[in-house]
């Protein structure tokens, strides 16, 4: 996907960031430097704080470069999007108590609060997987979930269809088979694992 800005907008944005004292965020990503010699870029201090008045000049050409998804690392959707999708799967509003645990862990799950200095963190790391499963387990164990998807163990497609927004394929169903055929676990455990697996899949949480 290519994002384009007209030249005037690009110039105005460049001017704004160039002059702002403490610009934070909304960059398009890094701009490799031409030199490695720490050349002066303004930033004359004048007392406590806010000395960083110099900023990297924005190359007008950069704004016209296509944005490409990094191919060597998966990232999560923003927290608010994942929350909305959970609410949609459950058929509830986002302020429903069913989602309280998820909101309790919102910053561990990568949400941001710029005013308080918490940046978005959308890495799908082992730590975050742990917290995600911890946060959604009450949902998967809830009566509400079981009433809405009563045949999940026999028919994982019922949840896959809603969570992923497409018809599940044979491959999708096959992937769940080891839960369906597990003799080690009772129905309740199978149900919980099925739910956790679908709602922890990259198709549901990935960007």
């Amino acid at each position, binding site marked *: 996907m290519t994002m384009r800005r007209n030249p005037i907008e690009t110039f105005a944005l460049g001017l704004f960031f160039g002059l702002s004292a403490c610009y934070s965020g909304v960059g398009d990503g890094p701009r490799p430097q031409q030199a490695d010699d720490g050349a002066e*870029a303004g930033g004359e201090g004048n007392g406590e704080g806010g000395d960083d008045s110099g900023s990297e000049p924005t190359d007008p050409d950069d704004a016209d470069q296509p944005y490409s998804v990094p191919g060597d690392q998966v990232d999560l959707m923003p927290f608010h999007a994942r929350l909305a999708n959970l609410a949609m799967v459950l058929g509830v509003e986002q302020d429903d108590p069913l989602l309280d645990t998820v909101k309790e862990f919102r910053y561990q799950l990568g949400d941001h609060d710029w005013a308080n200095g918490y940046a978005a963190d959308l890495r799908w790391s082992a730590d975050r997987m742990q917290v995600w499963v911890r946060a959604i387990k009450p949902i998967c164990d809830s009566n509400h979930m079981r009433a809405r998807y009563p045949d999940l163990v026999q028919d994982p497609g019922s949840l896959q269809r809603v969570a992923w927004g497409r018809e599940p394929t044979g491959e999708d169903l096959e992937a769940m088979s080891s839960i369906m055929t597990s003799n080690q676990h009772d129905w309740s455990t199978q149900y919980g694992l099925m739910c956790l697996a679908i709602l922890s*899949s990259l198709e549901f949480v990935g960007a």
Partner: protein
Amino acid sequence: MKRKPRILDVAPVRRRTFLRTVSMALSAPFIPAAVRFAVGEELLGEAKAADLDNLMPTYFIEMNLRDQWDFGHVFVPPGLATHQGLKIGHDVDKCCLFHPSDTLTQTPNGMFLTPDSIALAPHVDDIAVMELNELCVGAIHGHEAMNAMRSPGRTKLVSSGKTATWHNEPGYDEQGNDFFYSTTPTPASLHNFVQKQITPSLRNGVTMKYISRFHTVCHFAGTRPEGELTRIQSVSQLFQTFPDTVQDFNVLPTPEEAELLSEVVRRVDNRYFRDNGYSSEAKSKHANQLGEAAKLWHVGEPKLVSMPLTEEENAYWSEGVPPQVGANKKAEIWQMAAWASKLLTNDITRSVSLEFDYLDVHETREDHVMEYMGKQAALPLARMIDQLKAAGIWDRTVIAVYSLDGGRAPNGNSYGDEGKNTFVLAGGRVAGGYYGDVSVVSDTSTGHVYGYHVPNDAGQPQAPVTNNDNRVPGARSWRTVMKALGVPDTLCDEFPDVAGVQPLNYMLKA
């Protein structure tokens, strides 16, 4: 007669597990080093006894202090401490040392402490200071989030084999951080990787990202992604990461369920990788993360610690430490020190990084600025050392303190791309002392011209330079930290920018 190492009595396929078990048992604080060595010798033979030592846990605290922290009120260079007629002041080229020479304390190993740092006096035999490291190169008078001491060979140019270092850092967009590429992992990340190999059940290392603005500290595991630290951005996140009940740790009741969930998600995600054009590396990294997640979904009977500080702990750690000076405070440095001590002394994790700042000050550095930085650095450091000694793990602990984005010249008006770039190393294996020197070379109408005496290979100060030349390469400091931590040379040599580089051996006990 040469004895057969007893390890040969253990079935080959079980030897690694057996050695891990033995090493864990021997790592208990009350086991003397000599006993550990004797058991190692018995098991492995004398030649390989040192290998067992490599399997011993070590503990690491990386203190990263921004913005362009000045340790001038913590460790006074001997040349300044003893200079007669020092012109003291907060501006231009006056010396920013606001404690007169008769209030300084000289320790038996030749270090000079101020009243702000005197709490470190009992520990100076285990604290080495070397401030004349390769300077920072950030575009804004040196500000950067990496530092050559932490990732030698970092470069702003896209370079063959080097990868972006900032991808895992939340909020990494602001100027004053700069974008670097590297191959060399930062110290806490590599240490975290090593310790998790030794003890697979170990909780992941953490970095407490409590700098008061989006100036940050970059951690980079490079080709060892298992070493990536957990980024903690708030106090509540820290407490949630280390809950104090077993139930909160064991999200799933059995390891079988955790493994099954991990396996099913991995299979389900195959299609996502295929359809979205991700590289095989992305898929492989994800599989590793899922494998690690399985261990976190069920951890069995974890070691627990209560992270919130009690009233007594608050009183102990906070006494005399000035509050953070910044725009958006998250936690005080004494709190971070307390939490780091709890995590390490309870062996919850072994790699902890602290990120803290004193909001950037230039041109006029008043005495309270230096006093605050002095006390904020010295008092938590002294108390951490006290606690780590009391826990009996000091001989296997290393604390590395960095002026993360460059230090300063002694001048009142100074920026972080000149003068010093401070590296403090503390630990039971560290040879205490102030290495190198800063002195007055000549006077000006307002202050002084300062000289920087970089240490030679024996740690002795050489003839001064008055500019930024001739600093110690960051790779040497990096190798020094790794040697102190017992990270094998074979692993260090895998990274091209530090391969074969000699540590600063004068900073370490023989």
